[in-house]
């Protein structure tokens, strides 16, 4: 139950990398860290995915998208949803973090900074539009459960912040 390393078959990696997160289309599910293993047995791909948040409505879609991508590439597949170890924002890759920021979602801070920002109103989240740190928390819950809503005091841009989950 304690697979912390990702085991991804080399042959499957390029296929999985093309599957994007349905809610953040610029982000591949590989950069998001939701694929925990992908093993090839004969022609059967066995893929384990883990949800970002329990109620994430994207998980069923991600499962279907993986199945389709693999089937288009000529593989039959089996998708398994696993809960342990629980997903953490640490699994978002550096490339993924850059893609998030470019898309207008501020990437998660460290757990301590996250707490300072969300509980004590510290200004540490950078505006995705003008990079100013003069930003404020509008709501602890944003457009989806994994995000909080912020606004920039300098350029007035409203944006999402991906909450730290660890």
């Amino acid at each position, binding site marked *: 139950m304690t697979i912390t390393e990702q085991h991804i078959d080399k042959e499957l990696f390029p296929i999985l990398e093309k599957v994007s997160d349905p809610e953040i289309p610029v982000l591949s599910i590989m950069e998001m860290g939701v694929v925990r293993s992908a093993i090839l047995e004969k022609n059967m791909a066995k893929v384990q995915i883990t949800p970002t948040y*329990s*109620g994430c409505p994207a998980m069923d879609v991600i499962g279907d998208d993986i199945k389709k991508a693999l089937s288009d590439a000529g593989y039959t597949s089996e998708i398994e949803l696993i809960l342990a170890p629980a997903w953490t924002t640490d699994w978002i890759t550096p490339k993924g973090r850059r893609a998030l920021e470019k898309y207008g979602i501020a990437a998660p801070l460290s757990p301590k900074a996250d707490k300072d920002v969300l509980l004590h109103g510290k200004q540490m989240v950078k505006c995705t539009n003008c990079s100013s740190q003069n930003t404020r928390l509008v*709501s*602890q819950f944003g457009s989806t459960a994994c995000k909080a809503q912020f606004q920039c005091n300098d350029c007035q841009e409203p944006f999402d912040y991906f909450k730290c989950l660890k």
Partner: protein
Amino acid sequence: MKENLYKYILGIADNSLVLGQRLGELCGHGPSLETDIACTNISLDLFGQVRSYYQYAAKIKGNNATEDQIAFLRKEREYLNVLLVEQPNTDFAYTIGRQFLFDIYHFLFLTELQKSHDLNLAAIAKKSLKEVSYHRRFSSDWIKRLGDGTEESKRRIQEALDSLWTYTDELFHQTEADKIMVSKNIGVDTPTLKETYYTEVQTILSESTLEIPESKWFQKGGKDGIHTEHMGYLLSDLQYMQRTYPNMEW
């Protein structure tokens, strides 16, 4: 079938299902856009957790049982949630008061459930705990804002807490199934959480310049399937789709 484990899982999951349903009622009806979105996001987290529990419960039940049947096709007496979570959204103060009184408990409970010898329950607890820590922040924050807010917000949150207080003791009530699960190191021995719970609640209420409600006696029954008059109405909403269109999928 492992009858006691099955009942134990329902006892945990039904709390989240019923509270999730109550919060879902606010979709499009929250007092402001931000609180509306927050309440429904919390609802979504709870439903997500519920699915993990019910999928596991369905496996234990066997006979092709599904998560949907367990969620939607039981009778009122077969739901094992505490009375607190079924109380209505009388106003925003009641919604926040109910959430706060449950979140403090939920967080303590899941922290312990992570140590369960049942690895499925431990994994669900670990996953859920991360989400519940945000819920607890949200509701505690609002208790402070309402308590230390205007004269009216203070009066109303105090009234809500005084009225909901009678349902708090049941959080620590143990059924026979609970006791058996504790003895097998699967379940959480909830009475041991009671002191910490009331201390934490009282600390936050004091910080919010609110009075600690005085209780004369406590209501219970939900964990044994005996609910308040609100439950029937809640279930008729919750079960409507599945009963009208049998076998439709979530």
